[in-house]
């Protein structure tokens, strides 16, 4: 039997100090790098990486959490589904506390709604075959890491002929968001730390347009502190090249789990299950071709159509600057509500809800450090 690989080696070691020194050497002027993955945001916060790098290097957190960027109207749709007596809502736990316009799934469950937390979309299919008299509605949130698992579960429901399971396809796609973020005016952005696990599915080639057409260096990075430091070093080396006239490119620090072409089985499953569509990102607005709808053959699995639930247009909470934060224009500390009226215990905006939200990660790891 094989022994387990020692992944601890990526976590710390004598290399960490050298990598930090290398980062310090490479920063020779104001530089802004953005990570667009909540798991990166948390890892950067937990390892205290911001406090190790020079002040001129700004590490910005983009729209990294699919929970955070789910529009209020979509949350309200899931709440309306939960209120139907013959419906069971199955969801990843992150969605429970996200406030809709006047309730949350957690509050609905306390009031008697049948809302169940699952760890896999396949659990929803299992529930449906065990309870044929109920409609099981799965809330499909996530980027390209998660959407193929939901696609696989839906196709499993088709194969096993389980009719009473449907999905809200609220998925978001990363490369169109990056292309959009590049075009945001009034904000300098020198490079992207690209999400490792999204890239395991879509492949590093997916960022070629961002690097080539928009001229922004991209480095696909893993999640351990040394991975992130090494990813920052690779980005800074590219930034230096670009500033002296070189071309931006896509590089992969996380080559142990990312191929240039990604995972072909998962990609073809996505193609089979979904069609690309424009999508609304909370705090940001509509981004072209950045979401999914179910393909024609699977339209009967669309929860909103099946249950006849329209999407309302609710108002965003007053004073919250999540949108500006996710666009890289502001930092969480710039928000007047941060840490006073808005805390993880009592969140006002979406970025304070999930532990991967930029405000929540900032509150937990960096606010405390500086106070």
């Amino acid at each position, binding site marked *: 039997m094989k022994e387990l690989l020692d992944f601890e080696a990526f976590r710390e070691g004598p290399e960490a100090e050298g990598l930090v020194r290398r980062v310090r*050497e490479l920063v020779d002027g104001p530089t802004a790098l953005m990570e667009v993955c909540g798991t990166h945001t948390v890892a950067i916060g937990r390892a205290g990486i911001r406090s190790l790098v020079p002040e001129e290097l700004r590490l910005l957190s983009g729209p990294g959490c699919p929970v955070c960027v789910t529009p209020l109207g979509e949350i309200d749709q899931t709440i309306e589904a939960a209120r139907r007596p013959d419906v069971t809502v199955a969801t990843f736990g992150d969605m429970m506390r996200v406030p809709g316009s006047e309730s949350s799934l957690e509050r609905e469950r306390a009031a008697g709604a049948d809302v169940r937390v699952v760890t896999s979309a396949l659990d929803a299919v299992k529930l449906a075959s065990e309870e044929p008299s109920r409609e099981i509605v799965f809330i499909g949130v996530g980027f390209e890491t998660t959407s193929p698992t939901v696609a696989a579960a839906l196709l499993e429901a088709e194969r096993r002929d389980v009719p009473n399971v449907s999905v809200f396809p609220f998925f978001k796609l990363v490369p169109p968001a990056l292309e959009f973020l590049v075009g945001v005016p009034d904000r300098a952005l020198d490079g992207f730390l690209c999400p490792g696990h999204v890239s395991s599915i879509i492949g590093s080639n997916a960022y070629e347009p961002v690097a080539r057409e928009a001229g922004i260096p991209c480095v696909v990075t893993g999640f351990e502190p040394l991975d992130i430091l090494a990813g920052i070093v690779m980005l800074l080396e590219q930034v230096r090249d670009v500033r002296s006239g070189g071309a931006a490119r896509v590089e992969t620090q996380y080559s142990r789990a990312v191929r240039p072409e990604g995972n072909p089985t998962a990609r073809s499953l996505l193609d089979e299950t979904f069609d690309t569509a424009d999508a609304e990102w909370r705090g940001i607005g509509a981004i072209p071709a950045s979401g999914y709808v179910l393909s024609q053959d699977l339209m009967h699995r669309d929860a909103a159509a099946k249950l006849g639930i329209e999407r309302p247009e609710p108002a965003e909470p007053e004073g919250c600057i999540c949108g500006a934060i996710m666009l890289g224009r502001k930092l969480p500390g710039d928000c007047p509500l941060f840490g006073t009226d808005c805390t993880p215990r009592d969140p006002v905006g979406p970025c304070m809800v999930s532990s991967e939200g930029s405000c929540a990660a900032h509150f937990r790891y960096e606010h405390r450090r500086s106070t």
Partner: protein
Amino acid sequence: MCLAVPGLVREVDGTRAKVDFGGITREVELSLLPDTAVDDYVLVHAGYAIEKVDRESALETMRLFREMAEAADRGRSEPDGTDV
């Protein structure tokens, strides 16, 4: 949300596998990674194996960490501090 955890495949039975996460064994779906075999390292997300973890490039990455760290050391030892 996009968290995925590496584990070692101990058994394969059709589209299901038993995966060892440092002592804890879980059942994992293989439909997104159909050519998975015993002794493969896989990344697992939301109950599904989504990609293999390549042992050789993991070791290569560790070598790279050392190289980058050493580049910093060389930079430091140069009196005018110019780039290496």
